[in-house]
């Protein structure tokens, strides 16, 4: 142990024992992935929200449902979740309505089921990888703590070889070990914050979609008899 060496973060990491280094590497990987998903999810959620806004505006501006359906079906790769729900419901409704022996209520029910399925797929898509953020937030402090405990154990074991135990002999080891906890916390805190925020945002978007489904069913119900005949 050389005390004159400065305790910069680099030397702290380099002097740590192998296990602590592994823990740090793992935590840095986790932290990188969690930040990656934080950015991706925030882009995805922002995109979903803006598309939902846009489609809601188009839908309630009183345009023709057929024209809306056409444009949604043509551009389905860029369509937002609400647009897809609308498309699935309307497609199912028109298909069912063409049949002879099917009344409007049944057609609306079918459309509803189709919308429900699409809705669930879309929400699932939006919620994917949120679990990763959640487990990063809860587990990475423990991983960091494990590295720290291990490093401190080593630091104290080194004391037994020296006759005079001073704080200066344990301090570098403890500082090294604590870096692991610091990295774990750095990974965990943003993950927890982002998870909570994203979960809330997705909740709000899915509520909007659900209420759109109800309203759209009503519209289909209303317009069904007239068109069916």
């Amino acid at each position, binding site marked *: 142990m050389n005390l004159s060496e400065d305790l910069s973060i680099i030397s702290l990491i380099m002097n740590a024992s192998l296990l602590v280094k592994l823990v740090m590497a793992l935590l840095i990987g986790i932290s990188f992935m969690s930040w990656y*998903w934080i950015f991706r999810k925030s882009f995805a959620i922002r995109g979903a929200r803006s598309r939902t806004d846009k489609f809601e505006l188009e839908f309630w501006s009183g345009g023709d449902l057929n024209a809306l359906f056409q444009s949604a079906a043509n551009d389905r790769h860029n369509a937002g979740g609400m647009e897809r729900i609308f498309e699935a419901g309307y497609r199912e409704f028109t298909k069912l309505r063409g049949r002879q022996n099917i009344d409007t209520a049944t057609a609306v029910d079918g459309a509803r089921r189709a919308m429900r399925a699409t809705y669930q797929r879309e929400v699932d898509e939006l919620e994917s990888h949120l679990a990763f953020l959640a487990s990063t937030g809860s587990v990475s402090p423990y991983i960091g703590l494990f590295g720290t405990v291990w490093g401190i154990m080593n630091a104290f074991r080194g004391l037994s070889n020296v006759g005079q135990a001073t704080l200066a002999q344990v301090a570098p080891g403890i500082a090294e070990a604590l870096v692991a906890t610091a990295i774990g916390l750095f990974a965990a805190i943003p993950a927890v914050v982002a998870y909570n925020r994203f979960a809330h945002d997705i909740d709000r978007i899915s509520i909007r979609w659900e209420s759109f489904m109800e309203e759209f069913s009503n519209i289909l119900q209303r317009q069904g008899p007239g068109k069916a005949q």
Partner: protein
Amino acid sequence: MPEHALKRPEPGKWQSAVLAAGMHLLLGLFLFYSVRWQTSKPAAVQVELISSMPTVAAPVRPPPPPEPVVEKRPEPVVEPPPPPPPAKPDITFKEPPKPKPVPKVEPKPEPKPEPKPKPEPKPEPKPVEKKPEPQPAVPDTRREIEAQEKMLKEAMARESAEQAKREASREADLIAQAAAEGARRNAASAWGDKISARIRSNIVLPPGASGNPEALVAIALLPDGSVVGEPRLKRSTGNPALDDAILRAIVKSSPLPKPDDPSVFVRNLDLVFRPLGQ
């Protein structure tokens, strides 16, 4: 349902990766520049001391103990009784060697410490020598009074006056010298205490050191108190590991404290050091 096969838009895959990488780069830079505890600490000596002790201790063992211990021991025992001043100081000074009858008899003239106590025990042999030395004011007036008395007496008997004058001046001389010597001795012993305290705070005692061993170490000093070269051991404690520890501690406490009274400073200091003592 065609929706299963739908290619979903995946916004910002690469953008996210780049942003995440940038995030960590930022954190790394922040940590790198903000976490620099104790950039340079002068504690390096301490560690070397601990680690190198066992290896150094072994080879040095043979030389020191034999001759000086036996030779020197009797000397301090003989000297202490005469001096009237209170405590025997830790420091002695190398001064131009004064004629010293007692030590010369001994086989070894080279280690002639403790010149201080001399004047008192043997004033008779060299009264004339002392006179030329500076005489403070107090003794002067006193001598004048003596002199006036003398004037009266002079008429009576020249020889007796001469005798009295010599007696008086010598007495005054002695008093002045004793006072100066006492002050100087106090300052010197205070300085010695300071140095000893400093060294004691830096010493790492080897295991098994006990009792109250005493070492005499010769240290060469610069005026700012830093130690020049290696301190030499003049008289061992009898425990080689302890001797080494003392020498290392002296080097380590290198700018030694300066004396309060600059006149006490000497370049070649003989320090009596008791590592375990009071």
